[in-house]
C-alpha cells in the first residue's frame, strides 16, 4: 500500500516503513540504542529527503525510547540521578551541535562531516567493544562458565571534585565526567541526527564504570529528552518533521522495542555487546565503502540555499 507523505512529498510503501520500524525497534530495545544510526541511513536509501529523515527520526526515537524506558523502569534498571546529569550535559551539547551544524551547512560540507563522524565514531567504538567483549567471553569460558568479578580500576575519573552518589549504579564519582559525556553525545546527536545511544552506552560502561544492567535504561531515559528537544527544534525552524512517516515508523518501532527489551534480558551482557559491536562495525564499513569507492553518479541535487 502506497502512502503519500505530506512533508517529505514522496510516496512510499506503508508496509516497508512498518517493517523497517519493527526491525530497528527490536535492535533498539535489545541494546538500548535509539536505532537512529541505522534508521537514518535506511531512510536516505528509500528516498526520503535527508532533512526530513533526520528530523522525523528524532521524533520516532522519542517513541521507541519511551516504550523501552517504561519496560526498564518497571524492572528498576534506570538510574534517574545519573540520567538527569547526562541530560543536562546533553541539552547543552545539542545546542552547541546545532550551531556547528549550521556553520558547516553554510560551507556546504555538512554531508561529509556527518559521514566522517559516522565512520570515525562507529569504527572506534565498534572495534573497542568487539575486542573487549571477545576477551570477556574467552575469560568466562576459561573460568568454566563463571565470570570472575574484576575489581573496578581506579583511574583519573575517580580523582575529580564534585563527587556525587549514584545509588542505582553503585557509584560515587565526580559529576564532571557524566556531564562531559552528555555534552559530547549531545553534539554528536545534533550533527548525526541520531539519539547517540551507541556512543553513550560504551562511554557509560568503560568511562564511568556503570554496571551494564542499568546502562541501557539510563541511556534511553536521557535520549527521550534530548531527541524531544531536537524534534521541536527541527519542527519550528525547518518544518521537516513528517508526522505520517513518524507514525508508520513508530508503530513498527514501539512493538519491536518491547520484543527487543525482552530478548535483551535473556541474553548475557557479553553476547549483547559483541552483537552490538558487529552491527556498529557493519554500518561503519558500509559508510566507509561509500566514501572510498567512486560513486556511480558524481552529481547530487540539493535545495538551493538562497531561495
Amino acid at each position, binding site marked *: 500500500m502506497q502512502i503519500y507523505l505530506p512533508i517529505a512529498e514522496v510516496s512510499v510503501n506503508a508496509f516497508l516503513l512498518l517493517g523497517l520500524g519493527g526491525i530497528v525497534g527490536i535492535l533498539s530495545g535489545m541494546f538500548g540504542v535509539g536505532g537512529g544510526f541505522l534508521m537514518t541511513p535506511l531512510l536516505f536509501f528509500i528516498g526520503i529527503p535527508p532533512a526530513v529523515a533526520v528530523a522525523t527520526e528524532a521524533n520516532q526515537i*522519542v517513541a521507541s525510547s519511551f516504550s523501552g524506558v517504561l519496560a526498564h523502569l518497571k524492572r528498576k534498571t534506570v538510574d534517574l540521578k545519573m540520567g538527569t546529569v547526562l541530560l543536562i550535559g546533553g541539552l547543552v551539547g545539542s545546542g552547541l551541535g546545532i550551531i556547528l551544524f549550521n556553520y558547516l551547512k553554510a560551507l556546504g560540507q555538512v554531508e561529509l562531516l556527518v559521514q566522517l563522524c559516522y565512520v570515525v565514531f562507529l569504527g572506534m567504538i565498534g572495534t573497542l567493544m568487539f575486542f573487549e567483549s571477545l576477551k570477556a567471553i574467552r575469560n568466562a569460558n576459561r573460568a568454566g562458565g563463571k565470570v570472575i568479578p574484576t575489581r573496578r580500576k581506579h583511574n583519573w575519573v575517580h580523582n575529580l571534585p564534585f563527587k556525587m552518589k549514584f545509588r542505582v549504579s553503585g557509584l560515587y564519582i565526580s559529576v564532571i565526567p557524566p556531564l562531559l559525556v552528555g555534552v559530547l553525545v549531545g553534539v554528536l546527536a545534533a550533527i548525526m541526527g541520531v539519539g547517540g545511544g551507541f556512543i553513550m552506552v560504551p562511554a557509560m560502561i568503560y568511562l564511568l564504570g556503570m554496571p551494564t544492567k542499568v546502562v541501557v535504561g539510563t541511556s534511553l531515559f536521557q535520549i527521550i529528552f534530548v531527541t*524531544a528537544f531536537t524534534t521541536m527544534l527541527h519542527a519550528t525552524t525547518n518544518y521537516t518533521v513528517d*508526522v505520517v512517516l513518524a507514525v508508520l515508523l513508530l508503530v513498527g518501532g*514501539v*512493538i519491536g522495542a518491547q520484543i527487543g527489551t525482552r530478548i535483551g534480558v535473556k541474553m548475557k551482557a557479553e553476547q549483547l555487546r559483541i552483537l552490538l559491536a558487529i552491527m556498529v562495525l557493519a554500518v561503519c564499513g558500509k559508510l566507509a565503502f561509500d566514501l572510498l569507492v567512486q560513486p556511480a553518479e558524481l*552529481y547530487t541535487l540539493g535545495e538551493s540555499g538562497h531561495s
Partner: protein
Amino acid sequence: MIRLCALLLLLALPAKAEEIVLGLSRDQVAITATFEGSDILVFGAIKREAPIPDRSELGVIVTVAGPDEPVLVRRKDRRLGIWVNTDEVEVDAAPSFYAVATNLPMRDVIKDVEDLRYGITIPRVIRSVGAQVGDSAAFTRALIRIRAAEGLYQVLEGAVDLEQETLFRAAISLPANLTEGEYEAHIFLTRNGRVVDEYITTIPVRKVGLERWLYNLAHENAFLYGLMSLTIAIAAGWGASAAFTLLRR
C-alpha cells in the same frame, strides 16, 4: 466559464490558418494520502477554415511543466582518497516536473530557433546563468540525467496520437513524488518546424484532506505541530508498553 469565454474570444479573433481546441481529462490533480501518481489525458482538435495544407507535415507538441525552482547541483571529486563535494553550480530555475510529448521525432517537429524562442525541449526549459564553474553545462546535464532517472523529466517522442491531421491526444503520467503547485500544460502546433499556434492552460496540483491539513499545520503552527508529533510518539510508546504488559498477564 473563463475558459469558455477565452475560447469564444479566440474564435472571434481574425483566424489563424490552424488553431488548437483543447480538452483535458482533469483540470486539477488532488494529492491524497494514498496518491500513487496520476495520468492526465490531453486531447483536442485542430480547427481550420481552409483545407489542410498538403505540402508540410503537421507537428503537435504537448508539454506539462511543474513549478520552477532553483536547484543546487554538487559534484564530487576524490580528495585525500575520499569522495567529497568539491564544485557546485546553482541552476536558477528548473521545473520540478517536465514532460514533453510529440507526434514525430523531436528534430522533425521543431526547429532549434523556435525551440529556443518558446522553450520546449528540456535543456531549453532550464535556466542557468551560473558561471561559477567553467563547465556549468555538465551540471545542467547532470540535473536532467538525475531527474529523468526519477521519472520527473520525460521525453515522449511519438506519444501524441494525431488522426487525420485534426484530432490529437496524449497521455502524460505524473509520478507519485510530485510537488505541489500550478502545473502548466502547453500545446504547440507546428508546420515545417515553425510554431503556428500555441495554447496554454494550468492544472493546479494540490494536497487535499489530511495531507493539506498536516502540511498547513506544520508550516503555520509549527510549535503546535511539534508538540502534536511528540504527543503521538509518547502515546504510542506508552500504549505499546501497556499492551505488552497486558499480554504477559
